[in-house]
C-alpha cells in the first residue's frame, strides 16, 4: 500500500529529493572531514605522549646517573617511586648495563584499572661528562652506558581525551549538517513556492477559466515559465474565442449547414438545418447524409436544385451548394453543404409560370378574337364600301348630280375603317408570332417611288409639300417590300396628318452597316419628351387630345416598328415641340443566315 503511494508522490516531492541529495552530500563531506580531523588529532596526541615519555625518561636518567655510578640502590628506588607518582606512569624499571634489575616500581593493578593501552619508552643512562651533559662525541672515550631506564605510560587519559574530541566532532558535524539542511530546506521551499502556485493555477485554467493570468513573482526560471504559460494562455484564449465566434455565426445563419465527412456521415448540423429537417440537436450527428438528401451525392456544386428529406419523410426543394472542406494539410476532410429552403420560391415560380401561361392564353385568345372580329367587321364593311362604290357608278351612269360626293365620303370612311382593321389584324398577327415576312431583294429607289405615288394624295390634304431625296444608285436591299412600304406609308401618313401648310421630307441613304435608312421629317406640331416615351405603345397617341383633333389610333407607329424589328431593323425618333418630328427607319443588311 505504501510503495505505490510513495511512487506516485515521488514526482511531486522535488523538495524531498533535493533535501535527500543535499543530506547525502553534506554527510559524506562532513564525515570525510571529521575522519581526517580525528586522524590528525590522534597523531598529535601520540606525538605529545612520546615527547612526555622521553622527557620523563631523560629526567629519570639524569637523576639516576650518579646513583648508578655509585650503585646506590636505595636512591634508585626513591627515584623510581617518585616517578611512579606521576598520574599516568604505570611502571618504572632501572637496570644496569648488563640488564640486571637495579630498582623498579609498578602501579597496583587495581589502581591502573582494566586493560588500557600502554606506551613504553627506553633510555640508556650514560656516565656524566665534565659539563655534566652527555657528550656523544666524547662517549667513545668513556666506558659504555651505566644502565637503562624503562618507563611504561598509560594511554588512558589520551584515549579519553580522544574519545571526547571525537564525540564533540561528531556533534559539531551533525549540527552543521542539520543547520545546512534546514537552510537548504527553507530556501528551496521559497524557490519552489511559485512553481507550486503555477501548478495550482494550471489546474484552475483546466477548469475553463482562460481569462486568468498566472502570477509572476520573480523573473527566474519559474517566472519565465509563468510568462510563457501566460502567453500560451493568451493564444489559446484567442483561438477559443474565435471558435466561439464562428460557432455563433453557424448557429445564427439562416441557411441550413451540414458538414459531411468522407464516409458520408453528418458531422455538423446547424440550427437552421435541424429546424428545416425536423430533427433535434444531436440526432443527425453520425447519421448518413443519404438519410436527408433525396438523390445522389451532389459532389462539388453551386446553386444545385436538390431535395432534402425531413424527419417525417416530406421532401423539401432546396438550393444546394456543396464544397470540399480541406484540412490544415490540404487534404479533403469532407464536404460543407449549404442549403436554402426553396419551398416558397418554388411556389412563387409555379404561380409565376401559371400567370405567364394564363397571360399567354389570354394573348392567344385576344389574337383569335381579333382575327374573328376582323372577319366579322370586314363582311359588313364589304357591303358598305361595295354599295357606295356601286351607287357612285349608278350616279355617273344615270347622270344624277349632288349625291356622288356624299357617297364618296361613305366609301372613304369605310376604307379608313378597313385600314384600321388591317392594322389591328397585323398587330395581332405579329404578337401571336403569326406574321410571315416575304423577304426578297428589291431596288430601294423603285420602292420609294411607288410609296410616294400612294402618299401624294395624303400630303395634299393638309396643303403640305412633299419632298423626296433618294440617290439613284442607292441599290438593292433584302427585306419584305410590302411591309417596308406599309411602314413608310404609316410614317408619311402621320407626318402629313400632324403638319399643316408645311413640308414633309423623305430622305433615303445607305447606312454605315451597309443597310439603308429612310427618314421622314415634318415641320408639324412635334412631340414632347414625355410623350416620346409612350409613343410606341399600342393604342397610345402622344396626347389623347390629338386623337380627337387628328383621329387615328396610334396603331400605325406600333405596327411599323414591329415590322421593322422583324426585318432586323428599327424606327428611331427625334422631335422638338413646335418645330417638327423626324422618324427614321433603319433596315440593316441581313446576315447570311437571315438572308438564306
Amino acid at each position, binding site marked *: 500500500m505504501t510503495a505505490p503511494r510513495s511512487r506516485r508522490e515521488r514526482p511531486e516531492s522535488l523538495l524531498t529529493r533535493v533535501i535527500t541529495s543535499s543530506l547525502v552530500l553534506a554527510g559524506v563531506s562532513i564525515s570525510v572531514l571529521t575522519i581526517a580531523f580525528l586522524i590528525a588529532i590522534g597523531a598529535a596526541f601520540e606525538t605529545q605522549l612520546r615527547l612526555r615519555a622521553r622527557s620523563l625518561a631523560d629526567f629519570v636518567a639524569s637523576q639516576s646517573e650518579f646513583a648508578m655510578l655509585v650503585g646506590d640502590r636505595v636512591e634508585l628506588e626513591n627515584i623510581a617511586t617518585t616517578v611512579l607518582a606521576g598520574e599516568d606512569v604505570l611502571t618504572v624499571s632501572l637496570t644496569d648495563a648488563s640488564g640486571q634489575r637495579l630498582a623498579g616500581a609498578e602501579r597496583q593493578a587495581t589502581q591502573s584499572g582494566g586493560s588500557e593501552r600502554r606506551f613504553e619508552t627506553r633510555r640508556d643512562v650514560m656516565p656524566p661528562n665534565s659539563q655534566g651533559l652527555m657528550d656523544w662525541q666524547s662517549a667513545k672515550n668513556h666506558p659504555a652506558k651505566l644502565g637503562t631506564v624503562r618507563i611504561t605510560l598509560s594511554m588512558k587519559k589520551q584515549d579519553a581525551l580522544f574519545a571526547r574530541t571525537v564525540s564533540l566532532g561528531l556533534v559539531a558535524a551533525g549540527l552543521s549538517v542539520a543547520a545546512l539542511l534546514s537552510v537548504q530546506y527553507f530556501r528551496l521551499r521559497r524557490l519552489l513556492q511559485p512553481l507550486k502556485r503555477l501548478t495550482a493555477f494550471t489546474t484552475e485554467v483546466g477548469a475553463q477559466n482562460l481569462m486568468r493570468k498566472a502570477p509572476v513573482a520573480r523573473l527566474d526560471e519559474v517566472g519565465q515559465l509563468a510568462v510563457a504559460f501566460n502567453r500560451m494562455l493568451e493564444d489559446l484564449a484567442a483561438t477559443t474565442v474565435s471558435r466561439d465566434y464562428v460557432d455563433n455565426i453557424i448557429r445564427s445563419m439562416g441557411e441550413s449547414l451540414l458538414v459531411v465527412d468522407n464516409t458520408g456521415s453528418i458531422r455538423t448540423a446547424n440550427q437552421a438545418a435541424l429546424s428545416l429537417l425536423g430533427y433535434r440537436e444531436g440526432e443527425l450527428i453520425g447519421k448518413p447524409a443519404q438519410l436527408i438528401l433525396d438523390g445522389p451525392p451532389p459532389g462539388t456544386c453551386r446553386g444545385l436544385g436538390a431535395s432534402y428529406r425531413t424527419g417525417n419523410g416530406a421532401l423539401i426543394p432546396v438550393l444546394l451548394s456543396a464544397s470540399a472542406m480541406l484540412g490544415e494539410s490540404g487534404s479533403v476532410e469532407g464536404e460543407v453543404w449549404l442549403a436554402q429552403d426553396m419551398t416558397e420560391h418554388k411556389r412563387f415560380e409555379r404561380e409565376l409560370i401559371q400567370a405567364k401561361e394564363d397571360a399567354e392564353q389570354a394573348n392567344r385568345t385576344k389574337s383569335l378574337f381579333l382575327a374573328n372580329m376582323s372577319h366579322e367587321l370586314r363582311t359588313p364593311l364589304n357591303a358598305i364600301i*361595295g354599295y357606295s362604290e356601286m351607287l357612285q357608278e349608278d350616279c355617273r351612269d344615270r347622270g344624277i348630280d349632288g349625291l356622288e360626293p356624299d357617297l364618296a365620303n361613305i366609301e372613304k370612311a369605310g376604307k379608313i375603317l378597313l385600314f384600321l382593321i388591317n392594322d389591328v389584324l397585323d398587330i395581332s398577327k405579329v404578337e401571336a408570332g403569326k406574321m410571315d415576312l416575304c423577304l426578297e431583294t428589291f431596288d430601294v429607289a423603285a420602292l420609294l417611288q411607288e410609296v410616294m405615288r400612294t402618299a401624294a394624295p395624303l400630303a395634299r390634304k393638309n396643303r403640305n409639300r412633299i419632298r423626296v431625296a433618294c440617290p439613284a444608285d442607292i441599290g438593292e436591299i433584302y427585306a419584305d417590300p410590302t411591309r417596308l412600304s406599309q411602314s413608310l406609308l404609316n410614317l408619311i401618313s402621320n407626318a402629313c396628318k400632324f403638319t399643316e401648310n408645311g413640308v414633309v421630307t423623305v430622305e433615303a441613304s445607305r447606312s454605315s452597316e451597309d443597310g439603308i435608312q429612310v427618314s421622314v421629317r415634318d415641320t408639324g406640331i412635334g412631340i414632347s419628351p414625355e410623350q416620346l416615351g409612350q409613343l410606341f405603345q399600342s393604342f397610345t397617341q402622344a396626347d389623347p387630345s390629338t386623337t380627337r383633333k387628328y383621329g387615328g389610333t396610334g396603331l400605325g407607329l406600333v405596327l411599323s416598328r414591329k415590322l421593322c424589328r422583324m426585318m432586323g431593323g428599327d424606327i428611331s425618333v427625334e422631335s422638338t415641340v413646335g418645330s417638327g418630328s423626324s422618324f427614321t427607319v433603319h433596315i440593316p443588311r441581313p446576315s447570311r443566315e437571315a438572308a438564306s
Partner: protein
Amino acid sequence: MTRLLIVEDNEMNRDMLCRRLARRGYEVLVACDGIEGIEVARNQQPDLILMDLSLPEMDGWTATRILKSETSTRHIPVLALTAHAMETDREKALAAGCDAFDTKPVEIGRLIEIMNRLLTRSEIGQ
C-alpha cells in the same frame, strides 16, 4: 357572254357583287351555300366560280375540293373570296384546289383583273 357563279351566304354582299358584275356585262348565277353551289355548277356549267369560304351547310373549302374532284366541274376555275385575310387562309384555299384568291372587301378593279387572268388561262386550257 361569260357566265359567273357567285357562291355567297351574305345577302347584301351577294346582291352587291351580283349587280356590279352584271353591270359590267357578266351573266351571274348565285348560290347561298356550298351544296347549292356544287349543284348549280354541275347543272349550269359556269365559266368561273367566285367562292366564299365561310359558308353554311358546306364550307367553301369542301365545296371546292368536291368540284375539283368531279370530271364535270374540274375544269371550272374557282376564285376564293374571303374576309379571312390571314396568310394561312390563302394557303388553305389554294390547298383546297382554288385557282386564285382575293380578299373582301372586294376592290372591283382588282377582282376583274384576277377574273380575266383565270378566264384567259381556262380558255387556253380548253
